[in-house]
């Protein structure tokens, strides 16, 4: 390659044949791109060598380019130690592996997040429909947390040790300098790739925590009431017009609204009464709130009204039907929870979805 670079000229190609201007320009462009790539790679190797304290002698630009070309082609005999055990080679390849690991790690973070959120959604759904096993898991986890807190009170040094251990593991997982360079290039590539993946996953998690929280909360208020039965049905069921007028008033903002996971499960108030668990469609009337709550909560049957009406809101009297288990989960979950669990698409889907188009016990 050095010869080709030294003797470039219009006239004859490498086979001694006459070379046209078009062929010459094409060859020149190819050689320039090769040289630029080799130079960049060699510069990176040079920097790595300096950081590693290695004496890499490349006195001229041509030496640098030749070294880069050798790296590109993995040619034996390049002016450097054998790549497999070369500290510089391991640095270059390791850095590259770390960069690739970052990208893969971001993907792994997204995948794990999606899996975790899906698991969370399934878990909440099970809890929502009264799955005893899910309830038991919540209580068991709570019990373990209480046990740990109780242990911490009696032995606070254990908490300090635990925190230090977590920090130590995090440093090993995320900082390539926390562990020694591997002996061989493949092992070093593997080590740096693993660290890079951990870094990438951390990047994803941090970004999604920053973006996901406010985004999910931004969906507060995007719930809608899926369907409202016609006023005529109330009148046909014997409700007086003045009762219907009261039921058509907006549901009070101070009302308890509808909880996705019922308060009876004793989960922390921070979650139970949060926007992630309380369904409060904006602008919903009293009857819309009662109807919707009935459809998603099989433990609710009717609501008391002011004494002046001498009537109660009764699902039985109106002949309302509930959603099936899936519908109860879908319509019973607030939009911020959907946004957090299923992504924005799911939340938007809840707005676009029309249950009247759905047949059967969904």
């Amino acid at each position: 390659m050095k010869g080709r670079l030294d003797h470039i000229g219009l006239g004859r190609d490498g086979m001694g044949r006459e070379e046209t201007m078009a062929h010459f320009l094409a060859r020149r462009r190819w050689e320039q791109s090769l040289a630029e790539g080799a130079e960049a790679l060699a510069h990176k190797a040079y920097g790595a060598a300096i950081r590693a304290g290695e004496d890499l002698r490349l006195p001229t630009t041509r030496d640098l380019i030749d070294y880069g070309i050798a790296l590109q082609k993995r040619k034996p005999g390049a002016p450097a130690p054998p790549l497999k055990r070369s500290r510089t080679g391991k640095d270059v390849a390791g850095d590259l592996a770390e960069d690739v690991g970052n990208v893969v790690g971001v993907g792994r973070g997204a995948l794990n997040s999606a899996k975790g959120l899906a698991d969370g959604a399934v878990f909440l759904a099970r809890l929502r429909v009264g799955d005893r096993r899910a309830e038991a898991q919540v209580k068991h986890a709570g019990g373990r947390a209480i046990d740990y807190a109780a242990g911490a009170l009696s032995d606070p040094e254990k908490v300090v040790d635990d925190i230090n251990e977590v920090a130590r593991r995090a440093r090993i997982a995320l900082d390539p300098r926390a562990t020694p360079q591997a002996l061989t290039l493949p092992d070093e590539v593997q080590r740096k790739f693993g660290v890079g993946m951990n870094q990438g996953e951390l990047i994803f998690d941090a970004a999604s925590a920053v973006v996901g929280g406010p985004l999910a909360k931004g969906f507060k208020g995007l719930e809608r009431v899926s369907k409202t039965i016609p006023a005529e049905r109330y009148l046909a069921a014997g409700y007086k017009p003045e009762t219907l007028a009261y039921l058509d008033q907006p549901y009070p903002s101070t009302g308890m609204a509808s909880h996705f996971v019922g308060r009876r499960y004793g989960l922390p108030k921070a979650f139970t009464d949060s926007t992630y668990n309380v369904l409060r469609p904006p602008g919903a009337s009293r009857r819309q709130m009662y109807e919707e709550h009935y459809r998603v909560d099989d433990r609710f049957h009717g609501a008391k009204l002011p004494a002046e009406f001498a009537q109660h809101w009764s699902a039985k009297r109106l002949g309302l039907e509930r959603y099936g288990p899936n519908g109860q989960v879908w319509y019973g979950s607030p939009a911020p929870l959907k946004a957090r669990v299923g992504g924005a698409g799911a939340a938007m889907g809840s707005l676009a979805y029309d249950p009247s188009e759905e047949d059967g016990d969904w």
Partner: protein
Amino acid sequence: LVKVRRDAEFLYDFPEDQIEDDHDIVQFGGKGVTEAIARMIRGLGYQVSDPQDEDFKGWALNVSDRRSEFWLRFSDLRPTGILVTSDLTFPLWLWPWPRRAYVDFLSQLDAELRRDGRFREIKWFANYGSPTEVPSIRPAGD
């Protein structure tokens, strides 16, 4: 296999205790009935919480003893009252059939409601609101 009917409907003679102002309901009615049921269950030897305000849904009680945890909610739709119950006992989720302790609790509660002269026409439902279900006078059994 014992069939359990976990929800009850009854008539009752209790004073109206709903609190309203000029505009709306301030506190939903039914607290007094729920307190009476709580006293009844305490008399059976269970630990019972104070009635918990669940807004338009009614008033709830948490009931427990050494082995069991139950949850009840009363909705004051006078003259009819609706009492729904759930067995939230941990960790017996592996047990696929209604637990004996739950069946016993409902049977004891039914007996107490009948003993108290303020509750009448007590009916039990496995699936309250179902248009096809025929209620029973007993919470458990055929």
